[in-house]
């Protein structure tokens, strides 16, 4: 009897989640239905032609290009971001830590056309550094795969710093000392304790960085246009009809491809994350 009010409260507690569920249904559910509907429709009839076309020729190249670019940025960004975060965490200079964290907070949100402009003005063909250091004479170009990777790293590394600093702060000094006391070298501490403890966070960071690069559009559009094949640029082209008219539903199929890629990444990530975090359960 005493539990009755509690059960009643519990039975209604899901109501608090209604606004969130409605929001999710609106911004994820509705687009998904539209994508699925459009993807499997051509000329008013049900068809898989859009899907087939989306994984062929230039579209496939763009899809693979996006995956390669995102994977590269995710891995390199995670490694460099982790090293930078570790340097900051172990620094004796409190001001340096604050400065790096503040800068990371700003830079991780730096994107779109402003980011592209900043890089074009700095390291583009007529950029300040390009001309002043004579990079142009040495064949330097920002407008290719590696240039785009560099620009994406510019916001990905700070994002990784923000993700991994709390985890590094959580590594207790006693663990390192206990490892030393048991005869472990610095490398052995990281191998047996430090990296395994950080792995769930690192994996999460890699996925976050992958997702950020995979979905990026405006920076690439402003910087490289169609010079670097990326799936987001292909979707934009197909939707706007700038290149081919009547390919809107191929754009939807490409969007579905992106969802599948994201799903595959999660399919790899989740078991790894579960395995690496089994000691937390």
């Amino acid at each position, binding site marked *: 009897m005493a539990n009755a009010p509690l059960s009643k409260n519990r039975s209604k507690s899901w109501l608090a989640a209604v606004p969130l569920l409605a929001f999710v249904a609106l911004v994820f559910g509705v687009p998904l239905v539209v994508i699925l509907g459009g993807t499997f429709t051509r000329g008013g009839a049900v068809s898989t032609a859009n899907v087939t076309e989306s994984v062929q020729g230039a579209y496939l190249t763009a899809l693979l290009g996006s995956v390669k670019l995102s994977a590269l940025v995710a891995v390199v960004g995670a490694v460099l971001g982790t090293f930078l975060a570790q340097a900051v965490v172990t620094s004796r200079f409190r001001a340096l830590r604050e400065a790096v964290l503040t800068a990371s907070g700003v830079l991780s949100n730096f994107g779109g056309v402003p980011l592209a402009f900043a890089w074009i003005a700095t390291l583009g063909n007529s950029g300040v550094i390009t001309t002043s250091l004579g990079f142009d004479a040495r064949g330097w170009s920002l407008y290719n795969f590696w240039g785009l990777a560099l620009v994406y790293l510019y916001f990905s590394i700070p994002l990784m710093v923000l993700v991994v600093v709390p985890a590094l702060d959580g590594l207790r000094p006693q663990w390192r*000392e206990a490892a030393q*006391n048991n005869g*472990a070298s610095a490398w052995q501490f990281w191998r047996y304790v430090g990296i395994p403890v950080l792995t769930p966070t690192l994996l999460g960071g890699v996925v976050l960085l992958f997702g950020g690069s995979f979905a990026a559009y405006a920076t690439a559009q402003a910087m490289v246009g169609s010079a670097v094949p990326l799936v987001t640029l292909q979707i934009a082209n197909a939707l706007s009809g700038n290149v081919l008219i009547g390919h809107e539903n191929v754009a939807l199929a490409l969007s579905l491809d992106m969802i599948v890629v994201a799903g595959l990444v999660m399919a790899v990530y989740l078991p790894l994350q579960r395995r690496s975090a089994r000691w937390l359960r």
Partner: protein
Amino acid sequence: MNGARVEFRGLRRRFGNTVALDGLDLTAEPGELLALLGPSGCGKTTALRCLAGFEHPDEGEILVDGSDITRVPANRRDAGMVFQSYSLFPNLNVKDNVAFGLRVRKAPTARRHARAQELLELVGLPSIGERYPHQLSGGQQQRVALARALALEPRVLLLDEPLSALDAKVRVNLREEIRRLQLSLGITTIFVTHDQEEALSVADRVAVLRAGRLEQVADPATLYDRPATPFVAEFVGTMNHLPGRVSGDKVTVLGQELPVEGPVPDSADVNVLIRPEAVLLTPDEDGDGKVLVSSFRGSTARLRVQLPDGSEALADVPGHHSVRLAPGTAVRVALVERPVLVSVASSGEHGR
């Protein structure tokens, strides 16, 4: 395991303007349990960390069985350490935590597991090898940490306030367990604590530190009964500060003349340091003292007594005497005839 002789020679360590160790000279004999006792900031943990290799002294040497290990890296010192808390590796289960040192030394898996099991049995936790640290209680975690510290059969065991995060009952049980293990293994053990009861109850000898220097090192009974300095007298156990007057090597306190032990201040007016058990109370209607408060503690009772001059003192009496020494009882107050320590008088200090 064979215990080693550990010597601190003239150890000095500064942190900025703070002097943590100020020329510490101290020796732990082979196989003994030496407690480092003192208030916060007295340097006891710094001394232990210098021995473990986590701190490096600015001056002085640390010798283990005559070998200078002052500059030996922490991971090459033959010392097992138990930290205050939270030092088990969270990603490794209990068995792997205990066998960590063997894993680092690339011992075969079977040997690692056998040794881990042996040590878990030694610390009374034979069936928790597969659990992770967060699944253990605080007491279990510290037992596992102890097993890990002993896994490599170190010559010295270092305990850095290993019981301070535990609740009172577990603390008492575990300290007895540690002592039992230490005696059976014969390993030289240095035990840092700020808890005097803990130090006195488990150590062969207790070293009292103050401001980075050694005040006194002695067995617990000597430390309690014959403190070398007023600081030790006040830090170890409870002490009354009764007003007295020095004349030569005697001091007059509560109308009694007692011999003075240790340094005598220049001033004639002094505080005389008297243990509660050295205050003798006799119920007497004509007595000029009065029992104010009585705290029954089982075998003893601690009484707060008003003295003839209006000041107060603490007195310990056998528990069964507490009935006839109830609050309000008039008493005659006397002191046990024995040498006493004196310190410079300061107003308002009495029983503590």
